């Protein structure tokens, strides 16, 4: 018998109770102002929200961010946003991204309860860019702020090979004496740019 047969047989020999799967249809938390709650949740984990009144205003809003001032290498994967100077699709090997200062990436939606943004790497040639960059800017439609994680999973389907990630704040650690340090391995700062009147990518 191979390991698979051995394990499955060992499990099937046992006969634990077989209760049914519960419904997740409950009155989960909703906030009076989901956008304000999202901004507060993100601030509590070390990130910040900036707002753009329209997609046309977005370049100016992002250009004003402190990480952009010194940035030499910028990757921008948001279509129609002319802020990058390194085209991800032209990078052959993700190791070449080691010196990216700022990455600007689209998020599909945001979650108010925990300050998280859902980012899909389906369109990204190298998902490493979200983690190896020094500073990360996520661009999210202002209309796409959900209240809680249950609403988030109602939006998500996983039928194709794909990578997606909830990102909530900058990379952090508290592994030395429980002192919070921002900027462990990933991005040192996270800015979420909320864009009004934009439907996303």
């Amino acid at each position, binding site marked *: 018998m191979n390991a698979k047969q051995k394990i499955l047989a060992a499990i099937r020999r046992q006969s634990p109770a077989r209760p049914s799967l519960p419904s997740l249809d409950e009155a989960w938390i909703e906030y009076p102002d989901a956008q304000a709650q999202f901004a507060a949740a993100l601030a509590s984990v070390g990130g910040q929200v900036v707002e753009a009144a329209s997609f046309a205003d977005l370049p100016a809003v992002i250009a004003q961010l402190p990480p952009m001032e010194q940035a030499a290498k910028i990757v921008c994967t948001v279509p129609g946003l002319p802020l990058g100077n390194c085209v991800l699709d032209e990078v052959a090997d993700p190791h070449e991204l080691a010196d990216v200062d700022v990455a600007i990436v689209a998020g599909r939606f945001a979650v108010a309860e925990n300050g*998280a943004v859902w980012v899909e790497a389906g369109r990204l040639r190298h998902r490493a860019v979200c983690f190896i960059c020094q500073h990360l800017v996520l661009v999210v439609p202002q209309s796409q702020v959900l209240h809680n994680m249950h609403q988030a999973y109602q939006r998500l389907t996983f039928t194709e090979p794909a990578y997606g990630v909830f990102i909530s704040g900058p990379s952090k650690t508290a592994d030395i004496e429980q002192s919070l340090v921002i900027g462990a391995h990933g991005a040192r700062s996270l800015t979420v740019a909320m864009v009004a009147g934009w439907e996303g990518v």
Partner: protein
Amino acid sequence: MSNELIVTDHAKAAAEFVRDDARAHWHDQALWFVRVKRDRMAQSLPEWETLRAKAAEIKAHTVGHLADYLEQFERQATALGAKVHWAADAAEHNRIVLDILQRHGVRQVAKSKSMLTEECHLNPFLERHGITVVDTDLGEWIVQLRGEPPSHIVLPAIHIKKEEVGELFHRKLGTEAGASDPKYLTEAARYKLRQVFLESQAGITGVNFAIAETGGLVVCTNEGNADLGVSLPKLHIACMGIEKLIPRAADLGVFLRLLARSATGQPITTYSSHFHGPAPGGELHIVLVDNGRSSILGNDDYRRSLHCIRCGACMNTCPVYRRSGGHSYGATVPGPIGSILNPARDPGRYATLPYACSLCASCTDVCPVKINLHEQLLTWRRDLAAAGKLSWSKRAAMKVTAAVFARPGLYRLAGKVARFCLRHMPRVLLYGPWNPWGRQRELPQAPRRSFREQYARRPKP
């Protein structure tokens, strides 16, 4: 610590830990701080108890249908292009991982946190075969550099002071002598580990949740080390115990809401990464490991211990863990949940662990998946006694106690003698080495009369 022949004597190891009184208090407070953060998060959600109940129901359902879900998971993951491997025990797991690495000519691996690979002692095995493994979670890297195991499943270096980290980094990385600022030290680690990420030919991760319905994996980190470790090289190996399965992607809504809030008092981890199939042009290998889990599944008393999502909340709240340190358990998973899982694997070696417990039930109160931890710990004491795994002194004490309790006259006499001794015996005798109860505490003041005598003399209505 990882020597398989050592029998854990928790009380003895704990006595060693508390000898440094200031340090023991510091450790206690560091963990209590995390527990308080957890409480704040739990109280911020009106549906907290509903979430716990749902999580427990989902896990009970999954464990009841585990074989079916494992097969479904394998089908779906394979359809997405991942390769699924099965390992009955730790040795088989290690061989599978080594084989994959050797076939790809890997010399160095960036590994993110995985308690399963700790349980299987993967690092020393790979090192013996000439493969360098770097633990990239900062806490895990610190303990790896010190050559010791983690003392906590979520906070691996919680027992180490920043001055000690500074000294370690000074020796190993050449940071400034005497520097102990966590920000400075973390920056030094960031610099060094970035090189590791860029140099490694493979990434190994643990798995927080595997979804049967979709064949996907979810890995949660705060540092971003799992994602950096697997998004630069072409090869990703994910190692998981078979109990990590959940049926539906929607169930993640429940578990991701509970996990980080329970673990560290965060609303969610910084990165919750969902892997469905390999990256374009890459390979994803998933190793499903039993290593004793299927036999726990057959036991009505301990089955619910398989619900554990490894948040560590039971450790942070446990008065014994906080005051004795994770290493005193001599096991990969310490604390209340470890004191249930380890005896299941090796009752002889871990017989003292279910006694590292005051039965206060705080662990059960905080457990996000509602494992009845304190009840299982009590049940273990019954089972260990029945299996003859208790020490001679404990067995003798139990015999005497049982004999006294069975004879009311003898019981009353024993009470009288004890009260008399407490009042009249000289301190030097009362607190002699024969009385472990007097070792770290003052004995209670003895009342003149027992409750029974007071009750008999009560004013009659």
